């Protein structure tokens, strides 16, 4: 909303500097986004009000005239080319040295006078453009008739226009009066109310029109007045100026008055040409399905049965609270006005304007909730202006149909509640002063017990805490101390999946991975790069109705495409190893319910391993790097896992392993299938590690199993086994590590795998570094030999293994 400081001053004296007023309003009332100073560059000495006293032809030019003005000090002759200059006008007059906007170039420059076609000019009569008010350079700016020659223009026309965004519950702040009240409350100055006095003719308004409301749930109140013998014409300059500053286009005095009163009070009004109101009656009713009306903006609107229409004796003439119809529009021929000021249900107006895609100044106010008492006030204010400015005579009284009338509201507010909510006590005199300034009725029957009547323009005030907010914001939140929460700590609520998810993030970082976060909405084509049609859970993702862009239409059911896309994008500028990961949700559809948010860690790595120099080394990261990452992370978590060769869409067979705890899958790793990698424009080998947080959480030990280091020496011995090529090394190692013999602990690591000369065809040799240790004594060679021979017997039995060279 645009708020003119001059207009605000009609209601309250303001002696604060502009920035201070803005800051106080931000603290207490609404968001002042900025302000524009009109006339900031108008030199009060050199740009003044003057009166045109004579207009004569220019001796040497047909299009120019010699204009004599009285600038308050005397007569001055200037050469002027404006077509609209006329004797008696008050105009803006500049003398040499005034800073102006050049009418042709638009640049700011100081006025330099020179003879025009041989005639000297003492100054310049200014257009709006030259003053920087608008782009209008067609004619000169004509000031209000009461402007006093000699007065600095900045005093006559200067203003500050605030750009304010108000809150969704305060329709009253979409009127200057609302800010008048707020400013009065903030500064302690009294509020001045504008005049609503007007005369009336002998004939009653009710003799002109009959009003009935058939949809009282959507229209709690409808008032109508009638003004006869109006003279349609332009509204006065001061009114036009205010409308323009508020962002409205002046039309004619009748329409301008309705807009002016709306901008002042927040209450929208609508003027009908009475002679076009058929049957001399107004019926407020729901539309019939498919009913139509050509609205003032020349668009044919089609209504549904929840929309409210204002009809005359024959059909619709306006969309309630939104826009008038073309069939009853005020024109220059209009003589009698039917003036509507009504109250409509906020939600209904909002629904209608949303469905019709028609947001108007009226609908924006109604949808925020206006007080049902305001229409009557707005009627009288408008009638006052009609009488003053449009020469009309109001008919006696107002037709007022008010099915939604409610008894005045009273809210009990206690000083104890004020302190309970704000944390400080507010003195009774401050409570009374603040509430009174905002228009509340306040009675304090017993000390600390207030009985509060909210003003009728504040339907947003419903409960005691609403009143307390008004007290708090005007009193000033800067008065609140900073205190700390007291009392008991709440019961803990454990979320082991979340905890593990965050630990995995940290582990990935520890292992050298950069975290990335990508959009969770994608498209089907991208998903399909890594999700097969056969995966019915993931190939039918949830879609959204109104995506921000087509590529963000579906909730991702896999992180793999996102992370690979990120990888590929970074490959363009990164020559070395890339290690990235994302922790996020797969959104898996669930019939009739919210999707399952399945947390996953998805890591991708590839490229040339770091060498001596920061530029890439020569050796590529490979499958076993990926596996090393998984092992390290899971080992750190204390989750014992095994790896089993599997096949998975998007991963290269023979280079893919499922990560399992026992038989329970908890993740997968492998090389991205080159065909799928190509879909991301990746030609290098890329490896994936994916860990499924919920599955892992089921196996997470509460605390790590630990054993104190033995003080007896460890015996180290290598064991070389010959096995069938097909025997998985992991299973052999698992058996070795799990072997138990008395108190002897066995540690084992594979340090070589070999096929070739010296090993029979179809066989391979595995070299295992063994460690034997007891926590009770130093092991002898005989002890170790005994344990090892038992182990070798088991290996022979399980895997057909023989000891190489043994």
């Amino acid at each position: 909303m645009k708020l003119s400081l001059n207009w605000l001053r009609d209601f309250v004296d303001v002696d604060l500097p502009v920035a201070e007023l803005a800051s106080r309003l931000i603290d207490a009332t609404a968001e002042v986004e900025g302000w524009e100073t009109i006339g900031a560059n108008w030199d009060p000495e050199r740009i003044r009000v003057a009166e045109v006293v004579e207009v004569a032809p220019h001796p040497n030019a047909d299009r120019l005239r010699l204009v004599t003005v009285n600038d308050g000090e005397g007569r001055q002759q200037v050469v002027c080319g404006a077509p609209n200059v006329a004797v008696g006008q008050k105009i803006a007059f500049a003398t040499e040295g005034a800073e102006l906007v050049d009418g042709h170039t638009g640049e700011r420059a100081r006025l330099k006078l020179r003879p025009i076609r041989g005639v000297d000019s003492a100054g310049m009569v200014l257009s709006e453009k030259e003053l920087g008010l608008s782009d209008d350079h067609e004619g000169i700016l004509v000031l209000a008739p009461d402007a006093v020659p000699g007065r600095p223009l900045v005093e006559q026309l200067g203003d500050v226009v605030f750009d304010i965004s108000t809150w969704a519950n305060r329709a009253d702040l979409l009127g200057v009066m609302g800010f008048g009240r707020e400013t009065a409350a903030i500064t302690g100055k009294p509020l001045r109310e504008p005049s609503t006095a007007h005369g009336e003719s002998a004939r009653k308004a009710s003799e002109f029109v009959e009003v009935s409301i058939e949809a009282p749930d959507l229209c709690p109140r409808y008032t109508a007045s009638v003004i006869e013998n109006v003279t349609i014409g332009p509204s006065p300059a001061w009114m036009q100026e205010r409308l323009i500053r508020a962002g409205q286009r002046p039309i004619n005095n009748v329409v301008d008055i309705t807009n002016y009163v709306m901008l002042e009070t927040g209450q929208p009004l609508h003027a009908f040409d009475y002679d076009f109101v058929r049957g001399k009656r107004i019926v407020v009713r729901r539309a019939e399905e498919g009913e139509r009306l050509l609205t003032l903006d020349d668009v044919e609107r089609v209504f549904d049965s929840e929309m409210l229409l204002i009809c005359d004796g024959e059909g619709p003439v306006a969309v309630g609270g939104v826009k008038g119809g073309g069939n009853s529009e005020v024109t220059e021929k209009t003589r009698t006005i039917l003036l509507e000021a009504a109250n409509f249900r906020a939600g209904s107006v909002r629904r209608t304007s949303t469905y019709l895609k028609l947001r108007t100044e009226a609908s924006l106010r109604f949808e925020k909730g206006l007080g049902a008492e305001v229409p009557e006030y707005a009627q009288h204010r408008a009638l006052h202006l009609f009488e003053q400015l449009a020469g009309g005579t109001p008919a006696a009284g107002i037709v007022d149909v008010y099915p939604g009338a409610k008894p005045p509201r009273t809210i009990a507010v206690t000083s104890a509640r004020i302190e309970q909510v704000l944390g400080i006590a507010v003195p009774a005199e401050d409570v009374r002063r603040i509430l009174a300034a905002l228009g509340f009725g306040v009675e304090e029957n017993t000390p600390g017990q207030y009985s509060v009547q909210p003003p009728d323009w504040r339907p947003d005030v419903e409960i005691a805490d609403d009143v307390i907010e008004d007290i708090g914001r005007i009193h000033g939140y800067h008065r609140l101390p900073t205190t700390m929460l007291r009392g008991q700590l709440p019961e803990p609520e454990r979320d082991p999946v979340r905890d593990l998810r965050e630990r995995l993030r940290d582990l990935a970082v520890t292992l050298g991975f950069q975290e990335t976060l990508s959009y969770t909405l994608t498209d089907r084509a991208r998903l399909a790069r890594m999700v097969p049609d056969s995966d019915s859970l993931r190939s039918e993702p949830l879609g959204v109705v109104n995506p921000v862009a087509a590529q963000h239409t579906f909730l991702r059911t896999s992180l793999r495409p996102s992370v690979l896309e990120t990888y590929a994008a970074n490959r363009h500028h990164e020559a070395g190893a890339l290690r990235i990961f994302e922790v996020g949700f797969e959104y898996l559809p669930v019939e009739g319910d919210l999707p399952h948010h399945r947390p996953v860690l998805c890591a991708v790595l590839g490229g040339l391993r770091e060498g001596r120099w920061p530029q890439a080394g020569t050796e590529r990261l490979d499958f076993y790097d990926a596996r090393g990452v998984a092992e390290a992370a899971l080992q750190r978590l204390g989750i014992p896992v095994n790896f089993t060769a599997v096949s998975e869409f998007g991963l290269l067979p023979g280079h893919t392993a499922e990560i399992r705890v026992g038989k329970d899958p908890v993740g997968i790793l492998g090389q991205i299938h080159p065909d799928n990698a190509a879909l991301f424009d990746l030609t290098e080998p890329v490896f994936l590690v994916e860990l499924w947080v919920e599955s892992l959480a089921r196996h997470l030990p509460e605390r790590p199993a630990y054993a104190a280091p033995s003080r007896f020496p460890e015996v180290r011995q290598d064991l070389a086994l010959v096995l069938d090529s097909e025997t998985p090394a992991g299973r052999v190692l698992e058996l070795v590590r799990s072997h138990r013999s008395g108190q002897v602990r066995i540690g084992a690591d594979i340090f070589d795998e070999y096929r070739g000369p010296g090993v029979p065809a179809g066989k391979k040799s595995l070299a295992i570094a063994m460690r034997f240790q007891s926590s009770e004594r130093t092991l002898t060679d005989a002890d170790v030999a005994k344990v090892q021979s038992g182990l070798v017997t088991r290996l022979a039995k399980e895997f057909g293994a023989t000891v190489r060279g043994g």
Partner: protein
Amino acid sequence: MSNVSALEGLREEALAALAAAPDESALEQWRITFFGRQDGRVTALLRAIKDVPASERAAYGASANAVKQELEGALEGRREALKQAALRALSTESALDVTLPGRPQVIGRLHPVTQTMRDCLKAFGDMGFRVAEGPEVEWDRYNFDGVRIPEDHPARDMWDTIWVNTLIDGKRHMLLRTHTSPNQVRVLERTPAPPVRVVVPGKCYRQEATDATHEWMLTQIEGLAVDEGVRMSDLKGVLYEWSRQMFGQDRKIIFHHSYFPFVEPGVEMAIDCFICRGNGKECRTCHGTGWIEILGAGMVHPEIIETAGYDSSKVTGFAFGIGVERVALLRWGIEDIRNFYANDIRFLSQF
């Protein structure tokens, strides 16, 4: 005397050989030559004492021992000198060009939004707030109605919604939550009695155009404290402490009036501009106001307290919502929010 002169000759020979020994292995060779247990020449001379006439034996013995000790001392001296020379060489001829780059080490980093989120959660965790997450895909009932934003309410304009294309039972709408506030309702629903003190981190979504300060996917932290005796001054205290943790101990905060349907009173909090410290007319961070709007907050609306089954005349609460990206932008002076989800490692790896 010949024995003694032999001793003297050997001494001179040994000292000369020692001085010529260039390294540790030559020293070892020298030691074997002169002091070897079997054939060492000094050893042999010492052993030869038995052939010396008894009258000369004492003198010979003393001389031989003196030579032996001198040579042993010389060996140690030479060894030490070589060691010193080697160390000198190490720091001169073998000196490194320390300006050459080091061997690359691999280090990972958390995303700046995650880091900021963690720091915020830590600050609130220290004040007794525990983490409670809720779903990103949410029912409209929780996202709007449960926080007092009915359909056809203009406050819905504050949150442009991305709707999910499923309608359950012909009436339940699914959407991408526009804020973390729906989880206030979920937490209250499952907590039979106060106190409640939680922070709700998570992604939210808005149907809006992206620019330098707006993203359609964003991260929020919702805070909620409900108990007997929770005051607006406590809200101010908690947010003050958080501001100091995140933006420096000398931060100041201010509350401005604001409106959110689920709080009453409602405020926006600003911190004093730590970039220009209130002196920058042209400051791009605070636009010359000296204050940076940073979050929305307020006292939980009594209706929400009542819906939770608590007595709103006794139980009060506060709630706040923080945009994590906005905090990250501010703390690092990042100019464009779109950097966060562009996922360029050249950007991410700087935090």
